[in-house]
């Protein structure tokens, strides 16, 4: 593979386009397999492969060219209805898509393309050979060693040609039999009327055939005044791509946007984060100065300027955040394929419905969601949805339903994965928990069914009786819990025995900056993300208030006809109470649909915090040890370190 001398811009365009094409191919293959579309999908896949073949040849990615060429031969047979689509053809196609993606990744990372393609080429050829009408499969199989070449073909039509678009189409078809057309001018010639066509058709054509053969093919078409074929050298090609019109259809797409290196955006975000910390710091200093120099004119000017800075800070932050937002489609689109493969493996038929993939979330979060969702999907396919005969016996539809949906809710995104499978069996989970020694029977007896469900997220827990290679090693759901927690998200389970299970993941829109309530307990400062807070109540004496009752070890607060368990932050985090005080505030928070109250001594204020992850320092044998219930830290304006409370973790630990 040789990319020397290629313009970076060209490479970017190529990569962007190829990525889209690979994804589109996969999407259409899935449709094809589901029997949703037939001919149009085949044509579409064919076009994608065809175009990848052409552009990769121009870019000099030989393996990609060889593979797409081989795949194209296979698809051509299908398109011409000389071959049927069966499972083996589908599997080969999916495999080829995987390999193309691997090559794409290699190219992206600038590494040598090591993808081994001999096997798949052999598989494709084998399939083609089986087809009797295809006698010369081997000849059509291009080897990476063969000299490949790109030609610039200029065809001038006779003056009196009518329906030039059709003439162009004929030439296109006839040349496609012996090679690949990568670009044409006019670009989308089918749409061009005779008046706008001009009299010349220019094509970039890649073939292994001799010029003579190209001439012969073209001359089977009538009414052509002249045909010129030039073999392009590498550097000519580059120059051409830089300047010539041939690229105009790509460039016009890019008009209103520019591509920016994500590192730059991250850097801007970091700077905005620091700016906000300083801004909060300035606000504090100014409050102090205001008290001291009440009557100074300059102070008022300072305060005015500061309020403007605050405004700008908020806008700046919003804009930078929005540039980091990506639609969930970016990761959702890979799941249909996964579900397809897994359900085949499990011998189950499953329909995956995806909704709300346009919902946007911070790009830092999006990639971290792949693993948890993958595990939950696997779990649903492997353990949730029953086998066909079992479903029929239960009177369910034989095809299982999986629904992955996303929606925005104020400052967070809710992702729900529901299946219509067998549901979670609380008794089974109980038995498993005891069997594995995760909890004692006494403890379990005190827990509600809902709390017991959460044990499936415990390390080492697995309800599957036999270990399969899909899920069932007891690692999957544990990963879900830790990943979602890392993202400051919450996860909730709703299950209906025999009818299905839903996992509800609630995530903040962004990780880096958050609005939080600052709480002080003795010398410790905590930050409580506001999106969890429902209400704040001040009470005179937390020990005598009539709304608080003790039920066993737990204090219950009566709030709006609900009984809410209370957590005294001081006690919970085992902070020595040096200055006892009765005054307190109760902060009602919600995690998914669970509510509880924090009893805190002092609420400082609400402010924006820049979250710094402490993930690398937390855990057994790590710097900070096992810091459960703390999801990160933030440096406040005055330099204090605030611990960001992980409310979902507190809620779980508290209940256990």
């Amino acid at each position, binding site marked *: 593979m040789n990319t020397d001398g290629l313009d970076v811009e060209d490479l970017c365009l190529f990569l962007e386009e190829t990525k889209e094409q690979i994804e589109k191919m996969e999407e259409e293959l899935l449709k094809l397999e589901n029997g949703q579309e037939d001919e149009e999908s085949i044509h579409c896949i064919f076009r994608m492969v065809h175009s990848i073949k052409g552009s990769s040849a121009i870019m000099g990615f030989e393996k990609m060219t060889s593979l797409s060429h081989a795949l194209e031969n296979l698809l051509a047979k299908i398109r011409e209805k000389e071959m049927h689509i069966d499972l083996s053809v589908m599997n080969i196609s999916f495999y080829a898509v995987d390999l193309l993606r691997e090559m794409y990744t290699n190219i992206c990372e600038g590494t040598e393309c090591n993808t081994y393609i001999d096997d798949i080429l052999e598989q494709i050829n084998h399939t083609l050979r089986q087809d009797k009408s295809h006698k010369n499969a081997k000849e059509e199989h291009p080897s990476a060693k063969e000299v490949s070449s790109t030609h610039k073909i200029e065809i001038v039509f006779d003056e009196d040609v009518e329906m030039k678009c059709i003439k162009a*189409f004929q030439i296109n*078809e006839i040349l496609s039999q012996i090679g690949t057309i990568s670009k044409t001018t006019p670009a989308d010639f089918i749409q061009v009327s005779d008046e706008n066509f001009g009299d010349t058709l220019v094509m970039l054509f890649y073939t292994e055939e001799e010029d003579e053969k190209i001439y012969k093919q073209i001359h089977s078409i009538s009414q052509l005044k002249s045909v010129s074929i030039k073999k392009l050298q590498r550097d000519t090609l580059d120059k051409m791509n830089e300047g010539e019109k041939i690229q105009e259809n790509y460039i016009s797409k890019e008009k209103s946007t520019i591509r920016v290196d994500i590192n730059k955006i991250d850097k801007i975000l970091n700077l905005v984060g620091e700016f906000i910390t300083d801004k909060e710091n300035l606000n504090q200093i100014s409050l102090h100065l205001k008290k001291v120099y009440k009557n100074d004119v300059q102070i008022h000017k300072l305060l005015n300027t500061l309020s403007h800075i605050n405004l700008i800070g908020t806008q700046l932050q919003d804009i930078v955040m929005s540039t980091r937002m990506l639609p969930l489609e970016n990761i959702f689109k890979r799941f249909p394929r996964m579900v397809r493969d897994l359900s085949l493996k499990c011998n189950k038929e499953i329909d995956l419905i995806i909704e709300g993939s346009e919902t946007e979330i911070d790009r830092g979060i999006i990639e971290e969601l792949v693993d948890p969702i993958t595990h939950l999907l696997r779990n649903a396919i492997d353990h949730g949805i029953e086998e066909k005969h079992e479903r029929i016996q239960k009177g369910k539809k034989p095809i299982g339903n999986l629904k992955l949906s996303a929606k925005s809710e104020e400052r967070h995104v809710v992702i729900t994965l529901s299946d219509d499978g067998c549901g979670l069996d609380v008794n089974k989970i109980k038995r498993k928990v005891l069997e594995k020694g995760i909890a004692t029977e006494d403890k379990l007896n005190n827990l509600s069914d809902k709390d017991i469900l959460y044990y499936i997220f415990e390390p080492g827990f697995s309800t599957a009786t036999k270990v399969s290679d899909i899920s069932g090693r007891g690692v999957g759901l544990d990963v879900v819990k830790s990943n979602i927690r890392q993202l400051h998200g919450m996860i909730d389970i709703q299950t209906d025995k025999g009818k299905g299970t839903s996992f509800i993941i609630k995530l903040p829109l962004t990780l880096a900056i958050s609005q939080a309530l600052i709480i002080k307990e003795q010398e410790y400062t905590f930050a409580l993300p506001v999106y969890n807070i429902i209400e704040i109540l001040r009470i005179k004496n937390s020990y005598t208030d009539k709304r608080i009752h003790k039920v066993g070890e737990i204090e219950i607060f009566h709030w709006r006809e609900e009984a809410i368990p209370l957590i005294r932050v001081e006690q919970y985090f085992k902070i020595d109470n040096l200055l006892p005080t009765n005054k307190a505030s109760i902060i009602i928070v919600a995690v998914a649909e669970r509510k509880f109250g924090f009893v805190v001594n002092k609420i400082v204020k609400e402010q924006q915090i820049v979250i710094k992850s402490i993930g690398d320092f937390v855990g057994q044998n790590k710097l900070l040890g096992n810091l459960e219930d703390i999801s990160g830290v933030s440096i406040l304006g005055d330099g204090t370190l605030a611990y960001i409370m992980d409310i979902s973790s507190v809620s779980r630990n508290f209940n256990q």
Partner: protein
Amino acid sequence: MGILIVDDAVFVRADISRKLKQNDFTVLGEAGDGLEAIEKYQELKPSVVLMDITMPKMDGVTAIKEIKKIDPNAKIIVCSAMGQESFVMKAIQAGAKSYIIKPYKTERLIEEIIKVQLHQ
């Protein structure tokens, strides 16, 4: 070398037939619609078919598809009126080797016939 002329207008068929004969081509037969065209094709085995598009009973595009099923190597030239790009496109996709737009000069027709016969 024999030609089959397919057109629903008797006058057009007669006109083409006469012009071709004047230029030493053999006209094997004529058909007035798509169905007849398929029958005549099997019966006469012409080397070139001139096919109109809009015809009763069966249109030209369908007839081309059917003939191509019988003989994948059939050489068919579509004769179309102006402004029927989409039909011509369908005909080409169905397997017509070439097209010619009415009204045309006899030389153009002859050029097309020779062209499709020369190239397999």
